[in-house]
């Protein structure tokens, strides 16, 4: 029974590929349906091929506005969370101090909390303070939940770094500032970049916390949520497809660059 043997040997591969298919199926549907011309308000059933949505991606009222708002919030949230998170990560790896355990659990807890709990409690705070819900409350919330992820990403990188490199720099008469800028920071950079990238993705895609703390401000995920009730324009799929392509190209390009660099070094 050669076939059964083959199946046995490749069972893991087949099961893994099935999972991969499950993961990618919605993306395929999103892409295909970006070329659809739906009859009613909802873009759930295939009607006929059309390039209308691709020709006019901003043809839906308010959609591109919400997209640009989401990009802005994601940019500032990434900047804030990366700066604050990197500082915490350095403190945790490089220094001894009191209450380290408390600091660690303060970092861990936001990641172990269902989003809806953070969202609801933050809203009670804002309501009690009488804060105006909108751009700033969204930004505050996003920096809060992205922070921990940056700390984890940067910490992992700084921890695996050889401390003798910095000592060598000092031996070669580099001052603390010079050591930090020319040795420490470049080595920690991939961790910081990973944290920043993760922050951007988390912030851009966040719905639950934003839904609670946005007031009447509409980010892109909130726009999609609203359209699920009112009618889904095809343009949503265009944006989804474009985002997927940009992400894949971005990752491929960065891999190509690292690949070239390692080749050059070798």
């Amino acid at each position, binding site marked *: 029974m050669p076939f059964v043997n083959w199946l046995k040997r490749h069972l*893991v591969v087949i*099961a*893994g*590929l*099935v*999972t*991969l298919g*499950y*993961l*990618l*199926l*919605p*993306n395929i*549907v*999103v892409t295909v349906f970006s070329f659809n011309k739906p009859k009613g308000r909802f873009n*759930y059933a295939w009607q006929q091929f059309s390039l209308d949505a691709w020709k006019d991606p901003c043809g839906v009222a308010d959609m591109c506005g919400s997209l640009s708002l989401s990009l802005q919030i994601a940019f500032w949230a990434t900047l804030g969370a990366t700066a604050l998170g990197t*500082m*915490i990560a*350095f*403190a945790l790896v*490089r220094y001894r*101090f009191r209450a380290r355990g408390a*600091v*660690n*659990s*303060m970092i861990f807890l*936001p990641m172990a*909390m*269902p*989003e*809806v*709990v*953070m969202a*609801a*409690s*933050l*809203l*009670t705070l804002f309501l009690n303070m009488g804060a105006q819900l909108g751009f700033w409350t969204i930004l505050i*919330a996003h*920096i809060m939940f992205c*922070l921990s992820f940056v*700390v984890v990403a940067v910490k992992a990188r700084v921890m695996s770094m050889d401390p003798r490199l*910095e000592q060598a720099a000092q031996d070669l008469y580099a001052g*603390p*500032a010079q050591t*930090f800028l020319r040795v420490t920071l470049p080595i920690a950079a991939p961790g910081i970049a990973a944290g920043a990238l993760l922050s951007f993705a988390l912030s851009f*895609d966040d*719905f*639950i916390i934003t*839904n*609670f703390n946005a007031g009447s401000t509409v980010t892109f*995920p909130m726009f*999609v949520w609203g359209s*699920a009730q009112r009618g889904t324009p095809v343009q949503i799929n265009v944006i*989804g497809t474009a*985002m*997927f392509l*940009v*992400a894949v190209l971005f*990752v491929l390009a960065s891999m190509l660059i690292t690949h070239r660099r390692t080749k050059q070094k070798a």
Partner: protein
Amino acid sequence: MAAATGAPPLTPGTEEPKPPRRRGRLTPYWLLLPGLLWLVVFFALPMIYQASTSVQTGSLEDGYKVTWHFVTYWDALAEYWPQFLRSVLYAAAATVLCLLLGYPLAYLIAFRAGRWRNLIMILVIAPFFTSFLIRTLAWKTILADSGPVVGALNTLHVLDVTSWLGWTAGDRVLATPLAVVCGLTYNFLPFMILPLYTSLERIDGRLHEAAGDLYAKPSTTFRKVTFPLSMPGVVSGTLLTFIPAAGDYVNSELLGSTDTRMIGNVIQTQFLRILDYPTAAALSFILMATILFMVTFYIRRSGTEDLV
């Protein structure tokens, strides 16, 4: 980063000469201060506000006062225990499915993918960059009543079995528990795969050879060597799946019906539509306590405390 580089030692006499940037005794505190302050004010403090709101009584017009009205908790549980139970059950089902689906893929990437490894890795991560709401809506198309998936399941009489179990209703999949669990599984699958992959990748390949040399069958090798060594990944993967799934209300709202409402849906409606803040706060507090209790218990049981 001025604090990291230029902070002068505040207590000159006790200065340590060796590790260069341990000089300033206060440096770590300056580094921690802004970030921790952010977390204290916008994460910890809101929890306290929420706890306080949950024991208040009053109305939107007259304002709320703390009256230690713990009955709210009792009332909330009495009214919404089905949604609570449902959340735990759906999240548990999604977690088990994620583990069953995710393990082979993580294993494939770690040991069998060869030069395809990076490509598959990209394909696992890339969907993250398309809004998860759009991807969840795509399941409406995939599981549509007249679609090929439902058609196939009908022909194979799978839907008869699942309806009998109460997972689906009639010949529909959308608006049933199955659709919600399917969406939850889909949404949190990468959170299972990535930690699994990380811990599988660390396993020394020679251990597999050693097991083989000692006449272990592949299945025994997996049971006695690979799986135990991947336990840290299994634990963090299940946590990263279960916690967000238990609090989720997006999948239930988009793919489910009023019969599949989870606790997240209730909290959201109470907070944003009915504006019954004490009940919403109490429910949210109960959810938080339940999750923290379960997580602590689980981490203790699985003996991976160093993971945190």
